[in-house]
Every structure is written in structure tokens, then in C-alpha cells.
């Protein structure tokens, strides 16, 4: 019973959401020639990329725009992206999504985060692979950056336990209901999150 990307897309559709957190106003771009007809995500991406290009200082990292999938559940070209299906779900639904994945025989690949500081968002990405037909699925959810909380999927995929601890280490994202959310790779008394974009070497002193 190997599912196809289309079947999975249909199952994930009810959990998905396009813009579930209202995006904060984008960072003021450097004066550029006005962009015609702001189709929201695309124009914002262009603006942020321009802003990044005009500010050459490497720290803090150049603001980037989360590449929002045009549709919340998107079937991708594997050769171009490395995934067959990319779905954006509400944070509360990641467990339901994980259960769908488990039911279809997927294996957990990894859990990780991305800090979209300019937008005030944290993204959590769950990667899955199918051991029998090689299908690759990425499920993501976005959280408010400062109060990031998402339910743990370690009850469904026990392997996510360590990946979530690591994500908590690096980003400070809290996984509610996690059995042991202690530092995994960082020292046990670490109070800093090195992959947050506002991290500097001093905050680890």
C-alpha cells in the first residue's frame, strides 16, 4: 500500500492552511522602483531580496522571505526540489499529519526549524521518507517567533524525540507534551539558541 503524492495531498488538504498567522508588515524596503500590482507573497519576496542586496553587512543576516508555497499543499518536481509533496499545516495539526504519515508507512526523516526573523516567524519543518516507494514529503508549520509552541509528534514517531530536542536547542521552539525537552547537543545549562538569527557570540558567554 504505497500511496501516491496525489492521495497524500488530498488527505493533508483539510489540515493545511495558507496564511494562518497574519504576516507582520514587511520590513521597510530600501526605496526601489515601485513594484506593480502587489501579488502579496511574490512582491514581498522581491522587496526583501532587494533589501538584502542593498544592505551588505552580514550581521544580522539579510532578511529573507519565507518562500510560501503558492498553495498550502503542493506537489513538487522532485528533480528541482528534492521533495514530492510540500504541505503547510496549522501548528495544531502536525500530530494529525504525522498520524497520516505513519498510517501510510512513512518513516521520520528529520525535524528542524527555520528562523524568519524579519517576518517574526519560526518555521518547523518535518521531513518524511517512504522506505518502500521513496516518496519524500515535507510538512511545515509556522509559529509566532517569540511564543513558538507546537505539539510534539514524539508520541507518533518516537524518533522525533531527539530531533525536537535539537530544534528546541537551536531555536527555542517549545514542543508541548514532549517527554524530555532538555538540551540535546548544547551544554545542559545552555540558555541561548544559536540558530536564531539574532544570536551573537556574546549571548553564549
Amino acid at each position, binding site marked *: 500500500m504505497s500511496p501516491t503524492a496525489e492521495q497524500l495531498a488530498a488527505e493533508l488538504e483539510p489540515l493545511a492552511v495558507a496564511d494562518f498567522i497574519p504576516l507582520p508588515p514587511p520590513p521597510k524596503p530600501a526605496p526601489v522602483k515601485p513594484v506593480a500590482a502587489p501579488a502579496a507573497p511574490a512582491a514581498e519576496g522581491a522587496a526583501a531580496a532587494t533589501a538584502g542586496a542593498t544592505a551588505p553587512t552580514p550581521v544580522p543576516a539579510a532578511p*529573507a522571505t519565507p518562500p510560501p508555497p503558492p498553495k498550502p499543499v503542493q506537489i513538487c518536481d*522532485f528533480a*528541482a526540489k*528534492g521533495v514530492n509533496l510540500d504541505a503547510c499545516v496549522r501548528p495544531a495539526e502536525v500530530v494529525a499529519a504525522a498520524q497520516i504519515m*505513519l498510517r501510510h508507512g512513512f518513516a521520520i526523516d528529520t525535524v528542524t526549524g527555520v528562523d524568519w526573523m524579519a517576518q517574526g516567524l519560526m518555521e518547523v519543518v518535518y521531513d518524511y*521518507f517512504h522506505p518502500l516507494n521513496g516518496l519524500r514529503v515535507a510538512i511545515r508549520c509556522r509559529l509566532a517567533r517569540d511564543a513558538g509552541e507546537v505539539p510534539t509528534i514524539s508520541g507518533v514517531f*518516537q*524518533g522525533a524525540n531527539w530531533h525536537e530536542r535539537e530544534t528546541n536547542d537551536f531555536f527555542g521552539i517549545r514542543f508541548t507534551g514532549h517527554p524530555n525537552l532538555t538540551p*540535546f547537543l548544547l551544554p545542559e545549562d545552555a540558555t541561548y539558541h544559536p540558530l536564531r538569527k539574532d544570536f551573537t557570540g556574546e549571548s553564549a558567554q
Partner: protein
Amino acid sequence: MKVLSKEEALASPHSIGGPNETFVLNLGPQHPATHGVLRVKLVMDGEFIQHAECVCGYIHRMHEKMGENRTYAQFLPNTSRLDYLSAMQYTHAWVGVVERACKIEVPQRAEYIRVITSELNRIASHLVGWGAWVMDLGGLTPILYAFDDREKILDLLEGICGARLTFCYYRFGGLVNDVDDNFIQGTKAFVPYMRERLKMYKAFVTDNIILRKRIEGIGMVSQDMCRRYGACGPVIRGSGIAYDVRKAEPYSAYRDFDFDIPVYPQGDSMTRYLVRMDEIEQSLRIIEQAIAKLPEGPFINPKVPRSIKPPAGDYTYATEAARGRFLIRLVSNGTDTPYRVKLRTPCLSNLSLFEEASQGMMLADAIAFMGSLDLVIPDIDR
């Protein structure tokens, strides 16, 4: 024997003299059997493990942060320092994800040489894993033979890229330089040599009754457990699932070669041993074919831009490293440094099932089981 929950197990050490008296044993971080700085806190009931907890991070270097501070080309040497025993496949994933993002074409000759060097590296890695594991089990001699064979591979690879361990031979769009005749002839001669050695290893080690008694039926890992923990490489293939990134997500030139995925259904340490030994033979098959039909042509795409700036977006690329699936998730914001680099390493996933699988196991068996996972600790801690 009753297996206690973690809470019960941890609460009971104080009940000295009681029927459930347990004690905590630290395995590592400086224990030879952990092959690096891994610490395992074991709650023991006599010789039996009640609960195991792995403590990682002793050799954590934050490669993912380094990736955000470097250009794409500057990060390339970092990737060969994760699993230093299979550096070729790791650098392959990095050049692969950048090539995917920038849509860089790779000449066919370069892809073939990548396959040959990756497979040579896989053999070298399996030889170390095999020798070190048998040494853990008390047989000191095999690792000396393994290092002898590995030396031949390292000499070949040193001749083309200068490094003997942390190879950095691949470049975006190709290779750093072409292979010479010495490498081709040496590799051709290595294949039959290694086949002879494999026969000897089978006779002296694989069929050895002492080894079989130590690892047969030890460390059972079910298919369900593999899925829940994302186990990969010889661990998942030793549990009867024919999952190999080279077949599941064919990258590079692996489509052009005829090879099998060794699979054994039992899911014990012996099957993981057998998978690795069979993989050496399959790697030799791939090398033989690739050498025979090695195409002529350029070894690097001359049109690769000097400054690499992938279009904004996220990309993933997986390779089959010696220990399993290695995935890089790259988020680009269109500048010359990555916005985010996630390194998904096989050893972390393979070790994460140790806590569940080792419950109720005897301590000496747990050492044998851990050896069957073939861990490289810098790969876990990154």
C-alpha cells in the same frame, strides 16, 4: 524479567537490597566501545539493562551555524568532517543540493568518477566499521587486515585529491581534477584483490562460530521500529526493508549501473553485519561497471558561475552514505551565503532507537548491538 518504566527504574536505585535493586552505570564518554565521545547512562538490574539514556553533544561543533556564516564553496570542506569515514558521500550531498538549486549540469564523466570514488569510500568505511566492531567483540586481528585493505583505497584516493580522510574532491559542477591512469589501473587491480579478501573474511570471520554466537539474535530491530525512528542504511536493510537512497531517489549516475540492495529479514545484529559485507561486493560491482564504461569528456562544467547564488527557496538532496541516508535541507535567500543548512545524519537516527531496543538486554550484548549500528560520533553531534 520485568522491564521497568524510566520513572520506576530511576526511582529504584535507592532501594538497596530490595528485589528491584538497580544501579546506574556510565558507558562512556571515554569508553573504547563507543568509538568516540558518546555517553550512555544505563540503569542496570545486575547484568540487564533496565533503561538506557544516550547523552550526546560532547563533540558538538555547530556545523549548521557555520553554514550560515560561509559562502557555498567555503562550507564544502565542513561537510567532509561530519562522518569522516564516508566523506565522499557527504560532500556529494552538498554539491548535489547546490547543483539542484542552481540547476548546474554535471558532465557524465564527473558523475561516473563521483560514483567510483563514493563506492571506494563506502568500502573503506565498511572495512573500518567491520574491523572495529569485531575488535569490540574480542577479535583483534581482523581490524589489522581491514586497515591493510583500506590503505590501498586511501592511497588511490590520495593520489587524486590529496586527502586520506576528509576528502574534498567534488566541486559544484564536477570535480577538482580528473583521475589519472594510475588511479584507473589501481582501481582495476583493487577489485579482484578485494574479492579474494572477502572470501577470506567470510571463511575466518563471518562463518566463525564465536562471532555468530555473539551477534545472532542480538539487538532485534523491527521494521516498525525502523520507521518510527527513521533508521536507515544497513540498519533498515538488515530489518528486511530494501531502502537505499541510490535506488529510491537515484542521484548522480546510479541509474546506469546494475547492482542489488542486500536485504536480510531477521533484523538482528548478524543481518546488519551481512548487509555490510554484501554491500562491499555490490560496491565492487558498481566500480567495475563504472570503470569499464567511463566516458570521455570534461571533468567539470566550465560554465559554473564563480559566485554561487541559488534562487530563493528550499531544496533537499539525499545521498546514501556508508551509514545510511544523509540529507541536506538548504534554505536560500538568494545571497551568496546559505540562509539555513540542515544536516540530517544517519547515525543520529540509527542511535535513537538504541534506547528502546536495548531494554532488557545484557550489557555485553548491548556493546555488540551498538557496534552493529556502526556509529561515528561526530556525525551524531555535528
